[in-house]
């Protein structure tokens, strides 16, 4: 149900229109309204709703093909006996990712953004409506594969988690600094491929810290399983902090 989100539902009444008598001549009207105010307001509503359920919420961002969905498949399979999950999948088209997640038995909802290049707080607010949030520990939001636009849109998450695979080149943090600045955790994925590539892992970490001195960095491979325990510890610590 849409309560106060600005979507086209007919029962909306939250915009109060004060009609004043028209004056003659031009006049200047100060507005000073933030362009992302609507998104930020809805993100705040999402955050309050998630907080009330003790839900730990992650917004997974990366370029297409970094392995976000594979990382989720492995994580859900390995941790589902210890934690309860729900997953929102964002893509321009297809329900392919949701179908892959559904195989793990975790509740999942696909959001197709069509022409849109990112998820916004409004889509997420509606997207979680079908989930039993109080019975869920972790909500994973897999954003549209795009290192640009999702950086600007708060969804109400606890952390943005950037995934960067070693096939992409170590200078991605310098090329797309907004995204790596917005993330709290960087997962460097596909490290099982390092012997076959000229990817400089130390340089990549240096570049990421140059853009964001506070970023946490974990190296892993969701294919071989290397480094996954560190990610799982981080995840479980986050859930524990939400439910003291």
């Amino acid at each position, binding site marked *: 149900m849409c309560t106060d989100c600005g979507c086209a539902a007919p029962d909306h009444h939250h*915009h109060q*229109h*004060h*009609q*004043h*008598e*028209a004056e003659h*001549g*031009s*006049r*200047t*009207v*100060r*507005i*000073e*309204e*933030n*362009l*992302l*105010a*609507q998104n930020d307001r809805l993100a705040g509503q999402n955050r309050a709703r998630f907080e009330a359920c003790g839900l730990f919420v992650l917004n997974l961002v990366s370029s297409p093909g970094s392995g976000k969905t594979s990382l989720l498949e492995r994580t859900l399979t390995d941790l589902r006996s210890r934690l309860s999950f729900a997953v929102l999948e964002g893509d321009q088209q297809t329900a392919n990712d949701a179908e892959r997640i559904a195989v793990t038995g975790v509740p999942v909802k696909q959001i197709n953004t069509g*022409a*849109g*290049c*990112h998820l*916004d707080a409004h889509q997420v607010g509606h997207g979680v409506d079908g989930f039993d949030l109080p019975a869920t520990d972790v909500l994973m939001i897999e954003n549209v594969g795009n290192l*640009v*636009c999702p*950086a*600007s*849109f708060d969804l109400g998450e606890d952390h943005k988690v950037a995934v960067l695979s070693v096939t992409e080149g170590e200078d991605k943090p*310098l090329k797309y*600094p*907004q995204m790596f600045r917005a993330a709290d955790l960087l997962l460097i994925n596909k490290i099982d491929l390092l012997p076959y590539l000229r990817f400089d892992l130390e340089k990549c970490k240096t570049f990421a*810290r*140059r*853009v964001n*001195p506070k970023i946490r960095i974990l190296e892993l491979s969701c294919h071989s399983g290397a480094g996954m325990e560190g990610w799982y510890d981080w995840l479980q610590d986050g859930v524990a902090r939400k439910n003291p």
Partner: protein
Amino acid sequence: MHELGITQSIVAIAERAAREQGATRVNSVTVEIGELSGVLADAVAFCFTACSQGTLLEGTRLQIETIPGRGRCGACGAESAIDTYTFACPACGGFSLERLQGEELRVRELEVD
């Protein structure tokens, strides 16, 4: 191209404000876009004509004011002009720049009849 959504927000905010003022015409709308906001002013200007069609802002002049980026170094305290790709403090070379200005994305004012 998240500028399309950003431009739709400009039109929605300005149209709502204009109606609240009982305006019959909007001559101009002034928008502030920070250099560090990740939003391209040119792309917003490009989208504005299409987004304003059929609204109270059709034919309105869009004025974009660019807010330059400024940062302060967490190590040496120096303030300097920065852009999105400035990672090191120009004074001491340290990598702990705090952004002071340049992330603005605001509709500042309208001129209405």
